[in-house]
């Protein structure tokens, strides 16, 4: 759960909310969804606070294949 992407977690959470709001779930299912939703919203919050940026440069290697290389930010600023 810790490694889930924020947007995926958010989308899942939205889906759960919609399902719950439609109201045609059994109470058991709803409870399961609710618990999952709580975990997702926690994961979202954790991700929000602990996100790390990642910046790469797209380049082609000698074979002509694409490669991602980390950007040297010192060169940028």
């Amino acid at each position, binding site marked *: 759960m810790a490694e889930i992407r*924020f*947007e995926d977690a958010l989308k899942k*959470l*939205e889906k759960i909310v919609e399902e719950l709001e439609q*109201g045609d779930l059994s109470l058991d299912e709803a409870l399961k969804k609710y618990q999952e939703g709580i975990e997702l919203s926690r994961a979202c919050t954790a991700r929000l606070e602990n996100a790390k*940026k990642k910046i*790469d440069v*797209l380049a082609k290697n000698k074979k002509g294949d694409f490669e991602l290389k980390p950007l040297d930010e010192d060169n*940028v600023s």
Partner: protein
Amino acid sequence: MNGERHIFSVTEITQGIKLLLSRQYGSVWVEGEVSNFRPSSSGHWYFSLKDESSVLSGVIFSRAARDVPFKLEDGLKVVCFGSVDVYAPRGSYQLIIERIEPKGVGALQLALEQLKVKLEKEGLFAPEHKRDIPYLPGRIGVVTSATGAAIKDILKVLERRFKDVHIILSPVKVQGDGAKEEIANAIRELNEYNDACSRGDRIEVLIVGRGGGSIEDLWAFNEEAVARAIYASKIPVISAVGHERDVTISDLVADRRAATPSVAAEIVIPRKEDLRGQVRDLAMRMANSFEGLYADAAQRRADALGRLKTGMEHIWQLNRQSCESMSQKLLRANPALVIPEYIEKMREYARQIAVRAEHCIALKESRFGGVVEKMASLNPLNILSRGYSVTYLLPQEKIMKSAVGAKQGSSIRTRLSNGGLISTVTEVYGDGGDQV
């Protein structure tokens, strides 16, 4: 007129005119309106320059035509630089144009306007081609200079906003020779790279742009090659070129225009507090709807219980009713209740019997009356009154129907109509007086 005539050859005259013209009009600026424009297949451009009353033929040879950034067209007002030359084989003269500029606007500006018209006609700016910019893209492709202001600004936005994003930079020259090719190529390469990526790793949006500069510095973003690459991109593109007032062709083709690279970054990289709010809202909605569901379930349970109770009562009621009606039927069927009826019936029968008996007696009586009358008529006493008598042999008091039994000396009693006689037999005889 001394008879000496100088006769020129046609060539001499033509050469003379050519010399005169080249001396006088060897390097001139001419202003006029383009008409009858006809480019040849060899790349030379032929047309006429005209004003209200005159026409001048003109040509731009292919070498010069290549450097003209805009498109010549009839009606265009131009200023040309060149020389008037004679074309000897036809005896005609024309302006050989070295440079041509649109009148009033700059050549680049005109080129831009012409390209805009052309691309617009082709539908490159059509609103229906514009795609939505994804919210919260996981990967963002950036096409700009690795050392320019644009990438710096984007990284700054990232720093103060939500960092959970992967930026892939495709570094390019953004001005000068080769800039347009590099930009167009980078857009194509990011698309190619994306096609090979798994679904979750795809670049969801491109930011194509650069920081502010002069109109010439931004020119690459007005180039057709860049416009077409943006149009062809499968990844939605945000164009982010320079400062607000400069609208480039890239801006027009892109799915979204941002005034600066920072603004572009802000469009796709949301604020943390917005996201916090969103998560909070979702959690709240979830709690509310869950509570709603729970309340519903509780209500349903209560309803079911109520209905169960009502149902049971109903069933009980029904049973009770049928029980009651049965016992009532049973009561009605009690034989004790029938007895008075029978008694009544018996009484009725008795009455009927009495009536009938009386009737019967009356009948019998009336019949008996007749018999009595008859009997009266048969009464032996009555017969006696007619002169008959009855004789009883004594002492037996036996009615004598014949003389047999009586002997001489037997006592007999004779019954007459009003009294009798007791006599002693003195003689017995047979019928007709014969002795027995």
